[in-house]
């Protein structure tokens, strides 16, 4: 009986995880659909200048929603090609821009920091996407970018692309431990 209960419990936990992983939100709701905006740090704007708008402060809830959905991460991967991130960062290996699949993060590896890098832009090349991408798509991109260095669970990260092969599929990459997150872990206890 005890075994049965334990089995049932672990099964329901697993199922719960499955539901979150497979959840697909097509319409993110008005709040998340407005474009992401922040004071740009780079005068170069993707797709030309943007209209100014109120800056947006991300919430923690929004974050987890994207990092736990395989669909959202998959959309992030698609946008990564569509918005030509791939033009500079390649499929994670870097080229004109820095590599994204290792632990060397110039501007931080936390989701909020990646978000800021995309929206504000960074000096020496990274254009600002402020005003150009809806909020939720930035988060999808963030989730995908983090999956490239193994920060997301394997069953959520996308697998190999229908492109020329990189070294390894995102889900198979070893988990990198960026400096800033190591410090966090030490500070926590």
């Amino acid at each position, binding site marked *: 009986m005890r075994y049965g209960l334990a089995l049932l419990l672990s099964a329901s936990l697993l199922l719960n995880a499955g539901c979150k992983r497979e959840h697909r939100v097509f319409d993110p709701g008005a709040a998340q659909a407005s474009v992401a905006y922040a004071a740009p740090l780079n005068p170069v704007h993707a797709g030309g200048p943007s209209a100014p708008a109120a800056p947006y402060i991300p919430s923690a809830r929004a974050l987890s929603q994207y990092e736990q959905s395989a669909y959202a991460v998959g959309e992030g991967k698609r946008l990564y090609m569509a918005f030509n991130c791939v033009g500079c960062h390649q499929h994670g290996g870097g080229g004109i821009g820095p590599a994204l699949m290792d632990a060397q993060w110039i501007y931080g590896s936390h989701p909020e920091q990646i978000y800021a890098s995309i929206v504000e832009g960074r000096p020496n090349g990274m254009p600002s996407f402020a005003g150009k991408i809806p909020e939720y798509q930035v988060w999808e991109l963030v989730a995908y970018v983090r999956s490239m260095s193994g920060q997301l669970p394997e069953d959520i990260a996308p697998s190999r692309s*229908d*492109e020329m092969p990189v070294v390894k599929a995102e889900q198979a990459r070893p988990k990198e431990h960026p400096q800033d997150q190591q410090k966090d872990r030490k500070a926590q206890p």
Partner: protein
Amino acid sequence: MTSSTIVTPVELTESDRRHAARLEEVWKEPSGFLGWFKAVHHTTIGKRYMVTAFVFFSLAGLLAGVMRLQLAFPEAHILSNDKYNQFFTVHGSTMMFLFAVPMMFEALSVYLVPLMVGTRNIAFPRLNAYSYYLYLFGGMMLWIAFFCNTGADRGWFSYVPLAGPDYGPGKRPDFWAQMITFTEVSALAVAVEIVVTVFRLRAPGMSLNRIPIFVWGQVVVAFMVIFALPGVVLSSTMLLIDRTCGTQFFNPAAGGDVLLYQHLFWWFGHPEVYIIFIPGTAIVSTIVTTFSRRHMFGYLMVVLALVATGFMAFGLWVHHMFATGIPQIAESYFTAASMTIAIPTGAQVFCWLVTLATGKVVLKPPLWWVIGFFFVFIMGGMTGIFLASVPVDLQVHDTYFVVAHFHYVLIGGAVFPLFGALSYWFPKITGRMLNATLDQVSFWLFFIGFNTTFFPMHLVGLRGMPRRVYTYQPGMGWTVLNQVESFGYVLLFLSVCIMLWNVYRSARRGTIAGSNPWSAGTLEWATTSPPPSYDFLYLPTVNGREALWDAAPNQPIVVGLHDDVRSFLTTRILDAEPDGHEEFPSPTMWPFWAAVATGAAFVGSIFTPWGITLGAIPVAIMMIGWFWPERQPAERRRAREIWQSE
């Protein structure tokens, strides 16, 4: 020709009764909760297959109801597109992999073939139990995933790249691919058992030209399973490792090929159709013979037609891919091949017609279902000719015309005979007759409901409605026809409900059937209903195609087999002359544990490739336990071998 009185149970003598008690002692299935997991007898496993497959049929049928509701109105919002895609995929996959093949091939042949060839159990009974548990686990896995919003959503064919890593996020296609592995391993196991049972375990005298047509059909299917299913196991496994291990089989950019998947899939997918309906035609031959009260006309022609169908089925898979653009000469070849396969099927139809036209036809419910089969299945065959012609196929391919066609072929060719088989063999399985009036009602509801649902699909397809759309726009001229189809579903639903009620009631209160209520000619009717755990008190011998009709007045029985162990007689392939005796293994838990270990390895491999590597260890342990030799049977075997060599 002797009358059927020979099959009425003869008074048992005292020694018979002692013999029966000893057999019962040796053969009885273990009891209790744990005993359920130990059972290895083919009637027990066969019944489990039937019930499980019927549960999956009902579940998938309910999904169809929700889809029909969604399609009854243009731009309806009863199901979201995401849900609809899961619904139609799980409906199709369940019907094909968890209902049609397990029911038509595994369930029927496991239960009936050993009885029909006159032996005591199926060959490799433990493997049989193992195959059932694998099938059960695979089906449960697909459906549990479906209830967790992880239902496969890329169609029952899961074409790449749509199901591939870039366009199928999450784990939905992975669950689909592993469900295939589960069910195909199970079907392959049963195929091997059936081939061996039929070739080596037949009753003495049942030479190749006296094997019942039903058994011939199942043997042909078993061979087709052995040659076809590796194709789909290969394609779904390649899909899975493309998704989880980063291989490049189907990646055009790296030299992979999206068409490779389709070729592998349809190499299996087309024979699959014949795997599903050859048992149906074999049932039809059986029922037509019994209710025409004469031997099947053209036995040889029918058997050759079955074998020819089995061969030719492998030569026409490309007609599912005409729209991909293949060379002219290949198009012509596959058109010709697809049309040629109509000839053996036509020959069978003519033989049935002659048998009916020259027999003494008794109109009982099983025969009604067979008449339904004629009307529906032949219509499906006729629309199949449209699909064989390349230019016409390019217009109707992937439209509702095809949906209509294959429901006519598969429901006509499998479900109608199956329900006929239900009312025909129900007395054998339960010992009680199915209520004929209720059976008639469900037949007419099913027949009318079926045609109401699926005939308009031909028209709506010709009006340009593609398949697998979750909705359609108003003003296309499709709405009314879709509403008629949805109404037909209600009749089908009622019919199946009545049938379930009938089965439930008749199993309890039906009239007692006796051993041979239809005074049929095949061997399963020679034993009591339901059959005892040892199948036959004395193993029978055979004197003609219909063993009971052609039996000599003093038809001999097999004596001299040990009744203190599970022994049985082996015979030669061609003439079924006895050539030895063997011993069946005893009931055990090992197949269950082995299936659990295998299941864990398969499910694990959805999430990580290590699932197979590490999962193989418990599987190996369970298999070692399974095959660990026991002292006594081993000694008996050695003694037997010495005796035989002398």
